[in-house]
């Protein structure tokens, strides 16, 4: 063994696994602290509060996952919010006045549409070689405009049974959790372990290395954006179920796109690509939900909530960055 390898131990080390998932673990701990704090403020904190949290964050959690997939693949998607609004309007318009079964069919149709739009986005980006940020900025206007054709004013509706299926009701918190886990377990876990999933990470990590390793950028991009589109569709449908209708307002699109970026940054996805997962961002969404609640419990003006959320994002990323820098200095 040469001096070179001997000076740097390469055998298994205990810390390797925790090192790779350190950020996610830290976000989970942060969430637990916030949850405990929030629980201590609320009398009889229990299933109802959990259900409220899961139901009201479901759409944004899907959206954060949608953004994560794209960013891990080395892109960024500014159209996730607009696609959410489009899916929201489509589902609210066509579910209105229908029964449970039809609502399910409509949901499936909407998902097919958003997944196809995602695939189209990926195709345009790769084929035209225009940067993601420009293409998705443009498509966000297109999807937002299309939403206005579907639903001119806020309205529409959905079947009551469908709402319960997606979000649960009262103290039944597990339907919302199951809905959240479904795409994670059914699509992401198998994808992550497949060659295509590795290719998404490789493309985000180093375009050149990925290409030289035989990754097909077109196919990989399209898979990432298709999955992202599917998740945006789920987010739109969850919004329909939560609000009981649809709203074509562009501010919703913008706010939720920005919130998705905040969540992935807090959730440990590197904006430079190749690093992170989908679980961290979901916990980050919950953290960002709990912060204003806790402030309310402390009797602080809830208007400060947004300010604190922003400060927390910067602080967490700052501290995380410092820790990473320190670690790289030590090793």
């Amino acid at each position, binding site marked *: 063994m040469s*001096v070179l390898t001997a000076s740097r131990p390469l055998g298994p080390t205990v810390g390797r696994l925790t090192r790779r998932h350190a950020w996610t673990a830290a976000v989970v701990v942060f969430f637990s602290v916030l949850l405990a704090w929030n629980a201590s403020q609320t009398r009889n904190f229990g299933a109802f509060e959990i259900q409220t949290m899961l139901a009201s964050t479901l759409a944004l959690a899907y959206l954060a996952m949608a953004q994560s997939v794209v960013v891990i693949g080395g892109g960024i998607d500014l159209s996730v919010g607009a696609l959410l609004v489009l899916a929201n309007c489509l589902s609210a318009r066509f579910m209105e006045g229908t029964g449970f079964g039809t609502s399910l069919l409509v949901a499936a149709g909407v998902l097919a549409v958003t997944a196809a739009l995602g695939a189209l986005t990926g195709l345009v980006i790769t084929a035209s070689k225009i940067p993601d940020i420009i293409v998705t900025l443009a498509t966000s206007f297109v999807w937002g405009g299309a939403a206005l054709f579907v639903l001119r004013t806020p309205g529409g509706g959905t079947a009551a049974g469908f709402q319960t299926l997606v979000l649960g009701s009262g103290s039944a918190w597990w339907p919302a959790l199951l809905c959240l886990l479904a795409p994670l377990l059914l699509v992401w876990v198998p994808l992550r372990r497949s060659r295509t999933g590795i290719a998404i990470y490789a493309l985000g990590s*180093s375009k050149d290395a990925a290409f030289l390793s035989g990754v097909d950028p077109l196919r990989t991009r399209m898979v990432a954006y298709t999955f992202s589109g599917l998740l945006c569709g789920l987010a739109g449908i969850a919004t329909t179920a939560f609000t009981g209708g649809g709203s074509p307002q562009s501010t919703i699109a913008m706010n939720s796109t920005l919130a998705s970026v905040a969540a992935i940054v807090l959730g440990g996805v590197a904006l430079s690509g*190749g690093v992170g997962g989908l679980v961290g961002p979901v916990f980050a969404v919950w953290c960002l939900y709990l912060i204003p609640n806790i402030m309310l419990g402390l009797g602080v003006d809830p208007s400060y909530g947004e300010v604190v959320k922003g400060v927390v994002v910067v602080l967490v990323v700052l501290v995380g960055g410092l820790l990473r820098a320190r670690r790289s200095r030590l090793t």
Partner: protein
Amino acid sequence: MVALRSVDLAVAPGEIHALVGANGAGKSTLVRILSGVVPPDAGAVEVAGRAVRFRSPAHARAGGLAPVFQDPAFAPDLTVAENLRLTATDPAAFRRRLDGFGLDGVHLGEPAGTLPLPLLRMLDLARVLAHDPALLLLDEITAALPADYAERVFEVIRRARDDGRSVLFISHRLLEVQEVCDRVTVLRDGRNVDTLEIKGPEGSGERTERRIVAAMLGERAALAVSEPRRVAPRDTTRAGEPALQVRGLSDGHRVREVSLELARGEVLGITGLEGQGQDELFAILAGDRRPAGGEIVAAGRRLVARHPQEAIRRGLTLVPSDRWQALLPQRSVRENLAVPQYNAPSRWGWINDGRERRLVAEAIARLSIDTRAQAQARRLSGGNQQKVAIGRWLVGGFTTLLCFDPTRGIDVGTKHQIYDLFRELAAAGKSVLMFTSELREVPLACDRVLVIYDGRIVGEFKAADADEATLLSAAHGLADTLTDSR
């Protein structure tokens, strides 16, 4: 811009064929075409008698052509195992190859980005071999590779040849080309200008080398290389206070108690294996990293640099090994050369255009930078990029130049120009501290050489006495040859 005009090349089965040429001769472009990275405009590639046209690296690999580039094709955030899956490499076959290299301690769960570059190159080679390619394309694989690794690479490609495979071996090191290869093709300006047989290490080595170099540089430059082995430089060291003194410098980790002294008018070399603390030492001297202990005295005054700018103001300037840490790829050569000037704007903060243009023109002339591609620095060949990286400080001004592997991946002609430049600078009273991983250049460029091992200076030699064997054994920490000459 045409990098490759017309090349005819035939590699026989069971042959190690070297491809040599000055920077910008088109070697890398040829490899990129052969491995499917870029499509050719014209011409045909035949493998085993059948015409092929590779659409992608994966396609080329399936066709039996496998490249190993200077930058290993590993996604840094993925583990080695995941990278293997990406290329559909059988981990067992990969392991067997690694064992063959004597690298059995590598853990495949490690993210590729955390591994040192030379090791990654070996992993890349093992991965390529695991696919049993008919033709192995090695693009400067031994550049900045520690000597023991290079030896293993040679063993591996000899074995591949004995198995009936072919190897296309690109290298700037003519010695290893003559040692390892059967035939050599010389490229110049995108054409093949000469192909010659190498008759084994005994034959007329020197004549072969001279013929290769002459073919590489063309008739115009052939005269200049007729005496490529410069004898040890004359002593230009000036008495008086040293330009740079380092006492007991350490960073608490990789650099341990390093002391050295650099006189005005001296070129001091440092050599060592990969990862012995030289990167950290240079980073500290350049003000890019703070030391944990010890002191740096530049021009008689103690220097505590918290930022590279403070070191630069005191005349301590760094030319890093990675040129892209020094250059602005999209900007012109002129702007790149003038950047250090912007630290010291003239009155009112305006940039004095006339003065800038004059200084830049001087630097270009002095370094004979090929300004055909003046538009953007990234369009220059590697050798010209390195000249620009050094030229920045000729424009910006310095007293001590810190150069990290200044001739890495550079052709012979340019290397000698850089050595000459160092000698000229020394004669003018400037000092140069250069790290080099190529032991052969020590007597060509330096007055004195230090050997660093495990963060310590373990040897000091006069460059004239520094033969490769002595330096190598010191670099491996085998002999503590530090003589207390001071």
